[in-house]
């Protein structure tokens, strides 16, 4: 079975990655590193799980698992709910940036900060894994439910081609990492670079650290990607810092930029010969689905652009009789070969074939303007997006319910608002947040109301609750 990464090995002595200390590793070097993992042959029955830092150790592990044809689960390094994934998917290998004390696993290899563990007892067979399945990514900020998106070799290959063509990435472009590759957007930057034979400057620093700027200059990096939070930070510490760099283009995805930040970044880029691409994507479509070129952004700054060819968008559900600026709103549906196979919620689900068949209902409400540019106006599903990470509001409500307090959760101005008829103690919020990776106390605000409004049918009346939230002065 070929994997999507097979073509990269012909790059041989070309530099693939540079670590943050400046050590360069060629594709051949990475290929040799993989041999040291001595992974047992895998007959399409095995899962591997790893945590993803922007280090050469992590990249080597990722390449080893893909080359070994494992269905590989990619998780963030700071994840607290890792046990849920281990017990549900019983990976044959775990490759972690920390030690693990688990009676079913023994350590077989160590590489820098990373430890490779193997399952002691053989994996119970009888659970074949679909041979097309290559990667398993989390759908959103984990709220404890280990639901994963099933991504095939073909999905990644197509998505990378789409991105490479739409951004016109050159052979001498160098990406500097700003996002973890457990996140589909960060992963797509790594994959497109590898497949195009480009250099990647591995970076673990954040934009607000001096070391990031030192690396950006010394690596002569030409591009990076960022979620809105990154661009807000960039704006805060001063876009002028980019002037002495070799940055040729930047991409932005993972949610909408505040208008003023967009204008600042866009103007700066326009005056400094940097192409700024706004993109829109979902893990369920492997990564990015649309792009807005700088030229089009000038005319339609609030658009997320057009579908990247050969993908395409359409609207469904005209029963949502909503109009914005005179344009009919519907649910945005994406069709294309990069749409993932489907979700997995159990090991048995890894046997499934292509459930979605190239069609993704995004859950986003959108309209097309006259020229066909997509504008996103809201969401159908109850999700909050905080710093580029999606959180299911229903999952959050369930977690609070398990702590014996009923709340209605919604998103307002980049925060999660908990509406309740009771006082929600901050200790309760802390307990709940311990179960939700990535959310912080300052992301959550509470509002107490005397009674939760309901519709005549007795269902919670979300529209009324939303209007209460938007009119309430939210305590700091």
């Amino acid at each position, binding site marked *: 079975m070929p994997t999507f990464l097979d073509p990269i090995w012909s790059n041989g002595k070309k530099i693939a990655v540079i670590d943050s200390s400046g050590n360069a590793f060629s594709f051949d070097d990475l290929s040799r590193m993989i041999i040291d993992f001595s992974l047992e042959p895998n007959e399409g029955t095995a899962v591997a799980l790893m945590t993803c830092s922007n280090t050469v150790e992590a990249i080597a592990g990722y390449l080893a698992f893909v080359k070994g044809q494992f269905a590989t689960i990619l998780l963030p390094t*700071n994840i607290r709910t890792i046990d849920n994934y281990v017990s549900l998917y019983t990976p044959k290998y775990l490759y972690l940036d920390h030690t693990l004390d688990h009676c079913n696993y023994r350590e077989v290899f160590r590489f820098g900060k990373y430890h490779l563990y193997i399952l002691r007892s053989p994996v119970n067979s009888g659970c074949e894994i679909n041979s097309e399945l290559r990667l398993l990514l989390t759908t959103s900020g984990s709220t404890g439910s280990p639901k994963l998106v099933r991504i095939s070799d073909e999905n990644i290959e197509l998505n990378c081609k789409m991105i490479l063509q739409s951004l016109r990435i050159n052979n001498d472009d160098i990406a500097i990492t700003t996002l973890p590759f457990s996140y589909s957007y960060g992963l797509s930057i790594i994959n497109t670079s590898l497949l195009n034979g480009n250099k990647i400057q591995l970076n673990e620093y*954040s*934009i*607000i*650290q*001096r*070391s990031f*700027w030192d690396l950006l200059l010394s690596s002569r990096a030409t591009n990076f990607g960022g979620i809105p*939070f990154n661009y807000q*930070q960039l704006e*805060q*510490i*001063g876009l002028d810092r980019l002037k002495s760099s070799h940055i040729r283009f930047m991409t932005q995805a993972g949610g909408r930029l505040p208008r003023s930040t967009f204008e600042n970044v866009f103007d700066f880029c326009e005056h400094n010969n940097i192409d700024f691409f706004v993109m829109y994507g979902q893990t369920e479509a492997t990564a990015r689905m649309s792009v807005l070129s700088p030229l089009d952004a000038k005319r339609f700054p609030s658009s997320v652009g057009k579908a990247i060819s050969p993908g395409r968008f359409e609207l469904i559900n005209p029963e949502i009789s909503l109009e914005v600026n005179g344009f009919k709103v519907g649910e945005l549906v994406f069709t294309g070969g990069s749409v993932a196979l489907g979700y997995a919620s159990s090991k048995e689900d890894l046997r499934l074939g292509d459930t979605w068949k190239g069609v993704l209902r995004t859950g986003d409400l959108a309209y097309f303007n006259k020229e066909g540019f997509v504008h996103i106006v809201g969401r159908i599903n109850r999700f909050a997006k905080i*710093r580029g990470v999606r959180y299911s509001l229903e999952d959050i409500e369930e977690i609070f319910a398990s702590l014996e307090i009923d709340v209605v959760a919604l998103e307002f101005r980049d925060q999660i608002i908990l509406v309740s008829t009771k006082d929600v103690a901050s200790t309760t919020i802390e307990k709940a947040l311990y179960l939700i990776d990535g959310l*912080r106390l*300052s992301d959550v605000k509470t509002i107490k109301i005397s009674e939760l409004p309901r519709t005549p049918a007795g269902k919670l009346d979300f529209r009324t609750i939303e209007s209460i939230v938007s009119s309430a002065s939210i305590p700091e």
Partner: protein
Amino acid sequence: MNLHTYDSVFMELFSLEPSQLDSTLLYQSIDTWDSLGHMELISKLESVFNVNLEMDDVIDFSSYEEGKRILMKYGVAL
């Protein structure tokens, strides 16, 4: 007095014990001191000491100890 204030900002913001305030306390050495926590830290320190840090100092503020040196430049004796 100032040192006490400096320490209490760290302890409150990052939920730390006094024993954790030493030269091993670095940006990203604890979960809570990430890029978001960093900006919260800077704005807290700016308001309690009534100073306004240059962005160069914000990005150089890489540790508990380094922060003391930076604040001294602004006339905050620690």
